[in-house]
């Protein structure tokens, strides 16, 4: 087991990793920008190193600074968290070149899944169902038109270098394809420096269902069921739950095993998530995230596992603590993401927390780096807390969420907290009958934006 690891991240996920490491007796090094000197992850870690000024590019994204910090502290491994450098294949390469262990998959696997076209080809090759669409990139508008004809409208033009919901243009009919194609290419070039696009059939009322997988890097892998993350605003998840309300145990096993076998065949190491659109009982692969996800706690709750602990274990060459037969769904879990944003426009709202009080009690988990008096810096992501509840079934989880929301206090700044009490009153949420478009429609109705 590692003696000391460095966490190349900040906020709640840095805390998450520190907690797992501490339980394992592994020493932790926090890195931070000058804006985060008073951050909770810095206070909690055994050591900390200031790696740069506030901007991400000069600090949390600075490979040189992070590697240097490893050198001067003697950290043997780096946990990248999510975001920042967690899916940067060049970083993984640099880390390995310096004789430090990267806690996560190989540079090769990250690269494979980072390019959306290669990812789709790989998925197809491994037997994962995909959205019908172009084979590879679409170079010209004539091909685009032909594809629209073949698969039927509506279709969506996507940037291969895109992700996180960016770089996509919808063409509802043949009349739109030319504009959508050209616009997508221009935007892709501007946003990602790469104008290559591909085209997929657009699904009208899908759910976003993602499967958690985990590999030991030696050819063994398991699935840990699915999460339904359909409630999104501008492609950002707001509310996630496990198990998916629309997924039967048989469906879970079927898609889960396809994913687990695919990941095992790759010899994949660590945590990963395979994301799908699910419509009319069919799964359609969108992308694979080669890292831990924000919403991993709902899976942890339902399967009784510590995924970060497992990541550190397999990175240290130990086997996974579980096998597929050990993993059984137990109850239901829901997570809500609380952002430092002012409703109804979701405008960012950094500032000083005058009072923070976390909810407690049975089945309640709060993952947050907040504390009384903490000043949220304006330079980073607006996610400030995740509230996760677990119950014996979905109705109990919903009731527990409602109760916990009533106890949670985050004062001094505006947050999206008030959203959730309202959301819990919506019939679609209580019934679990929603799709990826539902939340934006409800927000428009409820807040008039």
């Amino acid at each position, binding site marked *: 087991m590692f003696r000391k690891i460095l966490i190349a991240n900040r906020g709640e996920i840095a805390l998450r990793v520190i907690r797992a490491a501490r339980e394992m007796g592994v020493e932790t090094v926090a890195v931070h*920008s*000058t*804006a985060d*000197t*008073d951050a909770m992850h*810095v206070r909690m870690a055994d*050591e*900390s*190193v*200031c*790696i*740069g*000024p*506030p901007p991400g590019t000069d*600090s949390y994204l600075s490979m*040189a*600074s992070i*590697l*240097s*910090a490893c*050198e*001067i*502290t003697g950290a043997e491994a780096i946990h990248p968290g999510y975001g920042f450098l967690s899916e940067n294949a060049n970083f993984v390469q640099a880390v390995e070149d*310096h004789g430090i262990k990267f806690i996560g998959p190989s540079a090769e696997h990250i690269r494979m899944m980072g390019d959306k076209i290669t990812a789709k080809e790989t998925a197809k090759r491994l037997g994962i169902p995909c959205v019908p669409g172009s084979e590879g990139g679409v170079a010209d508008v004539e091909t685009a038109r032909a594809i629209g004809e073949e698969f039927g409208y509506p279709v969506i033009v996507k940037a291969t270098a895109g992700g996180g919901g960016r770089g996509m243009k919808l063409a509802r009919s043949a009349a739109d394809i030319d504009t959508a194609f050209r616009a997508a290419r221009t935007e892709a070039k501007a946003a990602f420096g790469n104008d290559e696009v591909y085209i997929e059939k657009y699904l009208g009322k899908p759910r976003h269902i993602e499967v958690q997988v985990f590999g030991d890097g030696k050819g063994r892998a398991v699935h840990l069921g699915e999460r339904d993350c359909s409630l999104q605003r501008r492609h950002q998840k707001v509310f996630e739950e496990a198990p998916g309300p629309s997924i039967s145990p048989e469906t879970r096993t079927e898609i889960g095993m396809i994913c687990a076998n695919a990941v095992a065949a790759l010899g994949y190491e660590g945590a990963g998530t395979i994301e799908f659109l699910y419509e009319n009982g069919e799964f359609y692969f969108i992308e694979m995230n080669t890292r831990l996800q924000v919403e991993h706690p709902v899976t942890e709750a339902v399967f009784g596992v510590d995924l970060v602990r497992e990541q550190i274990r397999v990175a240290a060459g130990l086997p996974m603590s579980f096998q597929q037969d050990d993993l059984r769904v137990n109850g239901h879990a829901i997570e809500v993401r609380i952002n430092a944003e002012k409703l109804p426009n979701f405008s960012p709202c950094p500032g000083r927390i005058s009072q923070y009080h976390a909810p407690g009690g049975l089945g309640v988990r709060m993952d947050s780096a907040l504390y009384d008096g903490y*000043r949220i*810096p304006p*330079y980073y992501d607006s996610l400030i807390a995740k509230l996760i509840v677990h119950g014996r079934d979905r109705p109990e989880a919903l009731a527990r969420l409602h109760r916990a929301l009533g106890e949670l206090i985050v004062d001094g700044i505006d947050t999206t907290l008030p959203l959730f009490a309202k959301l819990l009153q919506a019939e679609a949420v209580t019934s679990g009958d929603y799709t990826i478009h539902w939340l934006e429609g409800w927000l428009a109705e409820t807040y008039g934006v």
Partner: protein
Amino acid sequence: MADETHEKDVAFIKAMAELLRDNDLTELHVKREYGESDWLNVRVARQLPSAPMMMQPPMASAPAAPATTAAPAPAPEASGDPSQAPGAVTSPMVGTIYLQAEPGTPAFVSVGDKVKEGQTLLIIEAMKTMNQIPAPRDGTVKRILVEDAAPVEFGAPLMIIE
């Protein structure tokens, strides 16, 4: 390393007090921003002695580490404008300090040396690359705040050059 900030602050203030004394100044004011909630605001001041024997360098109170500001010392009547002390040279990167070019060779600079802008003060090694850290201005090396082979983080004070 956040816990060493207090010690560094105290070392810095002591250096300022020396500067005050050695240059017969009555007041020195330094305001330095390291980050969004991390700044240093210190004023050291004293009465000019009528007889040389009665020198007494008062110190301004130390800032609470690392976020808040100091209270100013009792203000003397003399010299007006608080100057921004250009004093501290801070580390632009994470790495290891070397005070000389190679083991066994003399240090780049010593306390008391006069340096020119751009002159190498020390080396910071980061990931097997040696980075020469230049003096940001002409001046005299008043304090060397780091030891040879010490690890430093971004923003760590290295030397006082006045």
